[in-house]
């Protein structure tokens, strides 16, 4: 048996409301809020980035796992906003949690599914018996171009998972990945903001891959939507996960605990991973969770986890995702938001 | 040890001296001191300068300044202890004469601070703190002293107004000093409404960025007598260090190094603090003067704010502090300050301080401090 032995979440305290962004660009806030099912998003302070958030989320995962970090044999950080183009985020993380030097580290990218990619790899190494514990983090400080639809949703957050074969909190039952070459959203090197295909990002991209991965995994595991207590989908906005859930035959009740996006925004590589940490925060022993991520380009990773008794022992050892989402919020005006997100052009 | 006298002083007007380089400022000032002393020979030079390397990219000041004074091959050294580099130069010169190693020593201090931007100057000044554990976190000198002020205000009830009174007093004195950078008065309101630098310190709580130099000629007291000079003797010298980082101090509301250095200097001079008539102290920030008056024993611990409020340290008070205008009004070309303090005390003891003369001044003290009190140098002067 292998699975998650510890998990942790990190969400910055700053927020900006849809209205605040809309007013600057002369957009109609209510229609954005309705259309995206989104109210506000998290904003990283200038001193927060993928690396800093990964460290804090990982420390929380370690608290729940209760293991010696030196026994972690692999550390993966999945993000599309790694602070360096060349120099790994993973090494800073590994050093900060005292897992060095006997550790394998890699940085991963695949738009929004870089986080679950890392989870896939870490879990596989544990299953292969190659490492005792593997740490995977999905973290992003995503950027949206000023005035673009993505500016309303591009947010920041991190979720960390430690995989192992003992002290399991959520057992890995089955995994599956569904991938095609679909250019729905991309960023060329040296470009500051990503570009996307508008409505093309819907059916041929998000929906096709999530459904392909969900159906493929359920077939492999011989399970139906009704067999799950909870399902977590990648959440680029509030609408898409509800719609794909409906299309697949899931109820809103199954989706709700992991549906953070209306108050969080899209944390890209942290999106479904944070949905999973929020679900684990409230799940009971024996319950079944389906997680389906999505990364543009395109692909989906799917996991089935079965919660164990140990969840009751570790749940309270670190902050809960919903508390991080709801407490101590600091609302920003657009000007400060733009300054924090380096959208203001300064002298060279 | 021989008795040491100061027989010449030199100082030019301080300020933003755009058309003068470090070497020019030094040479002009040193010549004033040499002329005032009436000597034709110098046996040794000691120059205090905090950071010529960061400010003007120049090290090796011993060689350069000996050269520009036209005095090679005189032995010359640059000494550094952050903002107490000048006081340290005075101490080294004193030791050279007292020990018999040299007879006539030129002690000078110089700093040229305006060839870099404000941010770069703030950074250079910050190198007096712990670079890896204070500077690394974005601390500045105003920031460090502001933290001392917050702690002092919390522990002793020192008020914002009392801090402002230090600036008002020093500007009042400085308005009588033709060489001061800011020879004008300020009001409490002006201080309280000036722009914040590091809460609660405002720009008028802070000494400025200044270009300038000061110089003193030292020689054995016997030689001074033979030259028929008024003998102003350095009766005592003391120096002490403390931890570099403020967080390592036993008590962040107390300047231990000044207490220790002053005790040593006074003991050497055989005097108590009450025997002295004037004090030139290191008011890099208003809170610094308050804490220094406590460390010197002029005010009781925690009552430095009360002391300035009650006029104890005014020009006509019982313990006149900073009759020159202090660092606040006179300016603070870092390495020069310690020597300029000596220049003021010497002038006062000679009766040459004009409008700011402390009546009946026979004994005075200089206190020069580096960083947040990581170094303190104290000298006691007596008129024979």
């Amino acid at each position, binding site marked *: 048996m292998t699975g998650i032995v510890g998990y942790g979440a990190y969400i910055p305290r700053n927020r900006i409301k849809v209205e605040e962004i809309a007013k600057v660009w002369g957009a109609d806030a209510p229609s954005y809020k309705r259309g995206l099912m989104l109210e506000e998003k998290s904003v990283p302070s200038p001193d*927060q980035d993928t690396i800093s958030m990964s460290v804090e989320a990982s420390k929380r995962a370690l608290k729940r796992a209760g293991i010696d970090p030196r026994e972690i044999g692999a550390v993966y950080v999945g993000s599309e906003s790694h602070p360096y183009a060349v120099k790994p985020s993973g090494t800073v993380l590994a050093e900060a949690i005292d897992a060095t030097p006997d550790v394998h580290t890699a940085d991963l990218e695949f738009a929004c599914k870089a986080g679950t990619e890392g989870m896939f790899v870490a879990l596989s190494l544990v299953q292969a018996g190659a490492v005792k514990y593997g740490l995977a983090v999905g973290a992003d400080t995503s950027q949206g171009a000023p005035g673009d639809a993505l500016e309303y949703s591009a947010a920041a957050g991190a979720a960390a998972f430690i995989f192992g074969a003992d002290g399991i909190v959520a057992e890995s039952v089955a995994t599956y990945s569904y991938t095609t070459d679909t250019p729905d959203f991309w960023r060329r090197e040296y470009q500051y903001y990503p570009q996307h295909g508008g409505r093309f990002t819907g059916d041929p991209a998000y929906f096709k891959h999530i459904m392909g991965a969900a159906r493929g995994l359920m077939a492999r595991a011989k399970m139906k939507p009704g067999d799950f207590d909870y399902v977590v989908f990648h959440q680029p906005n509030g609408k898409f996960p509800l719609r794909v859930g409906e299309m697949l035959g899931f109820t809103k009740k199954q989706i709700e605990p992991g549906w953070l996006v209306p108050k969080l925004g899209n944390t890209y590589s942290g999106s479904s991973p944070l949905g999973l940490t929020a679900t684990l925060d409230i799940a009971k022993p024996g319950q079944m969770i389906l997680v389906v991520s999505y990364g543009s380009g395109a692909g989906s990773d799917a996991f089935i986890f079965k919660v164990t008794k140990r969840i009751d022992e570790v749940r309270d050892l670190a902050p809960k995702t919903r508390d991080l989402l709801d407490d*101590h919020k600091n609302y920003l005006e657009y000007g400060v938001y733009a300054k924090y997100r380096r959208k203001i052009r300064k002298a060279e | 040890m021989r008795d040491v006298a100061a027989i010449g002083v030199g100082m030019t007007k301080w300020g933003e001296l755009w058309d003068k380089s470090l070497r020019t400022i030094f040479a002009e000032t040193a010549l004033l001191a040499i002329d005032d002393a009436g000597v034709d020979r110098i046996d040794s030079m000691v120059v205090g300068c905090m950071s010529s390397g960061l400010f003007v990219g120049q090290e090796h000041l011993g060689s350069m300044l000996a050269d520009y004074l036209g005095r090679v091959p005189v032995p010359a050294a640059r000494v550094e202890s952050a903002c107490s580099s000048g006081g340290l130069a005075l101490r080294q010169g004193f030791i050279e004469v007292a020990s018999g190693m040299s007879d006539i020593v030129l002690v000078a201090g110089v700093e040229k601070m305006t060839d870099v931007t404000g941010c770069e100057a703030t950074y250079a000044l910050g190198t007096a703190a712990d670079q890896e554990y204070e500077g690394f976190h974005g601390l500045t000198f105003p*920031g460090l002293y502001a933290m001392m002020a917050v702690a002092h205000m919390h522990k002793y009830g020192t008020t914002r107004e009392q801090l402002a009174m230090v600036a008002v007093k020093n500007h009042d004195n400085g308005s009588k000093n033709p060489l001061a950078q800011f020879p004008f008065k300020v009001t409490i309101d002006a201080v309280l409404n000036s722009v914040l630098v*590091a809460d609660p310190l405002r720009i008028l709580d802070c000494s400025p960025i200044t270009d300038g130099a000061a110089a003193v000629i030292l020689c054995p007291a016997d030689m001074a007598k033979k030259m028929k000079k008024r003998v102003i003797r350095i009766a005592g010298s003391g120096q002490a260090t403390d931890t570099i980082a403020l967080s390592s101090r036993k008590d962040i509301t107390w300047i231990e190094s000044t207490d220790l250095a002053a005790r040593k200097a006074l003991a050497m001079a055989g005097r108590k603090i009450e025997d002295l008539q004037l004090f030139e102290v290191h008011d890099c920030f208003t809170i610094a003067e308050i804490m220094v008056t406590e460390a010197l024993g002029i005010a009781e611990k925690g009552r430095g704010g009360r002391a300035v409020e009650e006029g104890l340290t005014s020009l006509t008070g019982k313990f006149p502090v900073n009759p020159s205008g202090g660092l606040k009004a006179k300016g603070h070309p870092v390495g020069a300050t310690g020597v300029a303090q000596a220049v003021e005390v010497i002038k006062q003891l000679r009766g040459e301080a004009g409008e700011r003369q402390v009546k009946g001044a026979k004994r005075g003290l200089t206190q020069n401090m580096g960083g947040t009190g990581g170094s303190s140098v104290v000298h006691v002067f007596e008129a024979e």
Partner: protein
Amino acid sequence: MPTPSRSWREIPQRYRLEAGKCRGCGYVCFPPRVVCPHCGSREFGQTKLAGAGKLLTYTIIRVPPQPFEDQAPYAVGIAELDDGVKLTAQVVDCDFADLKVGLRVALEFRRVYEEGEAGVIYYGYKFVPE
């Protein structure tokens, strides 16, 4: 610009708060030292600092030094950690109005500064309200 070596050397302290514990008198040295400033011993063991404490003092820097130009205004403080060690760091995620002597703070891993657009990014600890 200095080479990265100067900051790299401090990583065990900045990332993991590793300190030296004097074998002679138990004094905790942060950063670790070669000789104990209290008892003069030259023998040390390794320890880690406590993760939380209370503010002894603080200020708000409004005129920053060069590498921090874009960050001002920011708060800094000295905290006494629960193990007695005193530490200096920025205070973040805290309204300036909430800063006070005695505020309980915890240590969090943050970006401290970077050497311009192309230089190394330096990480370290900062205080956040507990």
